[in-house]
């Protein structure tokens, strides 16, 4: 099977009405999401996460680079057949109910209307939407309910690649937990998941890999365990050690532990600490005051 998402050296510059470059949103990003992987896209506001996601889905035309969904360019509808997308602010038809929203998306996917009700109910149940909200217009639903309906729509048609932009935004802690469980479940089912979020703990809980974007560039990328491991320090973990022996142990580096199991590993920083460190380093290099990089020349920023 072709890799669900492959992007290479993607570039995007936003221009003003006269075509002058204003913001270099993405400056050469490469990304791949394989089946069973949950890849987290992290970065401050304006770092190019949403732009990247939109280019991946064919909603924005990249200025350079290459994107493939299942081996096809995303501008081709066939490439998006197995993709589910939950945008950050799903400005859906607010007069439709969650059930009708799913029917609408099913229609867009060309799915037959037979069995649509059962399919919609199963998905809405799966994302934990209360049954009473199934037939309530989205305009009357809470933000969390609308989010769940959007998530259900993203999962319509059993997509092999699920792109989630801030999936837990507006959800309560229980809802967040359920969505995290759902993402893990998708991963276990072999689906590829690309997740963009500001909630670092959420990303840490569900992602197998992360890419940290700052000013349109991926500043750090890799497996979470690898990224969070500190190679410049060594940690000794001793199980069941009495407090009075702690000093001895420290002094003798485990020899004085009295024969107890001594585990030595690398202490891990939290994802949040690491994220801030990457961000600070990027800022020290210059050109990244906010999330976005300003265009140096070209008469754009006026």
């Amino acid at each position, binding site marked *: *099977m072709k890799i669900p998402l492959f992007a290479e050296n993607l570039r995007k510059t936003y221009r003003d009405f006269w075509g002058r470059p204003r913001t270099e949103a993405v400056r050469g990003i490469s990304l791949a999401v394989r089946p069973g992987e949950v890849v987290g896209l992290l970065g401050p506001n304006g770092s190019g996460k949403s732009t990247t996601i*939109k280019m991946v*889905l*064919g*909603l*924005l*035309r990249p200025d350079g680079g290459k994107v493939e969904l299942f081996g096809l360019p995303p501008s081709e*509808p*066939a*490439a*998006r*057949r*197995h*993709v589910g*997308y939950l*945008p*950050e*602010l*799903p*400005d*859906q*038809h607010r*007069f*439709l109910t969650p059930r*009708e929203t799913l*029917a*609408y*998306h*099913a*229609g*867009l*996917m*060309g*799915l*037959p*209307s037979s069995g649509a009700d059962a399919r919609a109910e199963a998905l809405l149940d799966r994302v934990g939407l209360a049954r009473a909200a199934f*037939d*309530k*217009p989205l305009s009357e639903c809470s933000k969390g309910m609308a989010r769940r309906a*959007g998530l259900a*729509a993203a999962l319509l*048609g*059993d997509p*092999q690649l699920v*792109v989630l932009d801030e999936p837990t935004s507006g959800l309560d802690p229980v809802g967040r937990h359920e969505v995290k469980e759902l993402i893990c479940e998708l991963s276990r089912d072999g689906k590829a998941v690309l997740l963009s979020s500001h909630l670092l703990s959420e990303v840490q809980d569900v992602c197998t890999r992360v890419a940290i974007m700052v000013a349109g560039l991926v500043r750090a990328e890799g497996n979470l365990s690898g990224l969070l491991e500190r190679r410049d320090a060594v940690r000794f973990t001793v199980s069941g050690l009495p407090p009075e022996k702690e000093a001895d142990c420290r002094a003798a580096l485990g020899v004085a532990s009295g024969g107890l199991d001594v585990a030595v590993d690398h202490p891990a920083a939290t994802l949040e600490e690491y994220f801030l460190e990457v961000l600070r380093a990027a800022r020290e290099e210059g050109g990244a005051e906010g999330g976005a990089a300003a265009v140096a020349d070209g008469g754009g920023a006026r």
Partner: protein
Amino acid sequence: MKGVPRGGAGLARAVLATARASALEALQQPAAILIGLSVCSLVALQPLLQLHSFGESGRLVRDCALAAMLLGGAALCALCSAAPMAAALAGGGAATALARPAPRAVLPVGHWLGSVCAAALFVWCVAWQSLLAGRTAEAYVQTAHFAGDIRDALCGAVSALLPAFSLGLAAWRNIRRGTRIGTAFFVIMAVLAPLAAALLGFWERDGSWLGFAFWDPGLDWRIVAPSLAIWLLLCAFCAGGAAFATRLPAAAAASASFLPFVLGFFADGLASSEHLAVRALAPLLPSVRDFWLAEALANGGSVSSSALPLAALHAAAWSAMALAVGTLALRRRDL
């Protein structure tokens, strides 16, 4: 990998799903309810308020009703169709839809189809109100006991109350069952107006009971053809609105929708110009004269058999051109 069906049937489903959502969205807008209610009420009240007949019974009422249908329909299409589509493109709703395996053309075409359906419901309601208003209008009646001009007060009262009653019923259904008030209003109105016209056929214009054996609706069916022509013009108008909405923000798209419509008033002048280049511009505009068939009904006349097919052809050509331009514009747009 489990496949999602595509091809002609899949594409048709995508267009219909977009059309259905767009029609519901258009009819549910507060502006749509307001326009529907005011135009239907205005048409019904005309024969009760107008004191002139301009030498022909019901002509002023008929012309005013058709004019209200045209202007109200144009406002409905601009405010409730072009503007929401532009808002969806700006707000991300369109991005959600187009992240699906549907070509970009689905959006303007589906939106246009939805607007056309909403416009059809509006024209249907106003046309029935116009038929009832035509019956209400002062007309010369000669019976065994009476000869003179009379208004059909019963018909006038029924048609004047219909819009308010429909809105009340829609509101009641909304409170009790959560039914969408806008859609319910138009649907109730669309059902009740012909029903009222049929029932009123059992009464004479002077209010006397005709009996079940003497049913005569007394409606001037000639108004149907001009109403259809207006709907065809609204179809072209919606296509223009959908095309503008692919590039302009909501308010600008709604305003720009009127541009081809206004230019259409000059199409005749352009067509008769001496300059070939100017004459060539004329067919590119939806000439309002081709769609305004009310004049043909003056003095007992009727619409010629070729007028409606010509109007349909013109509307189809204009709509196809506008939608093609809109689709091309959307293909290059970043969402």
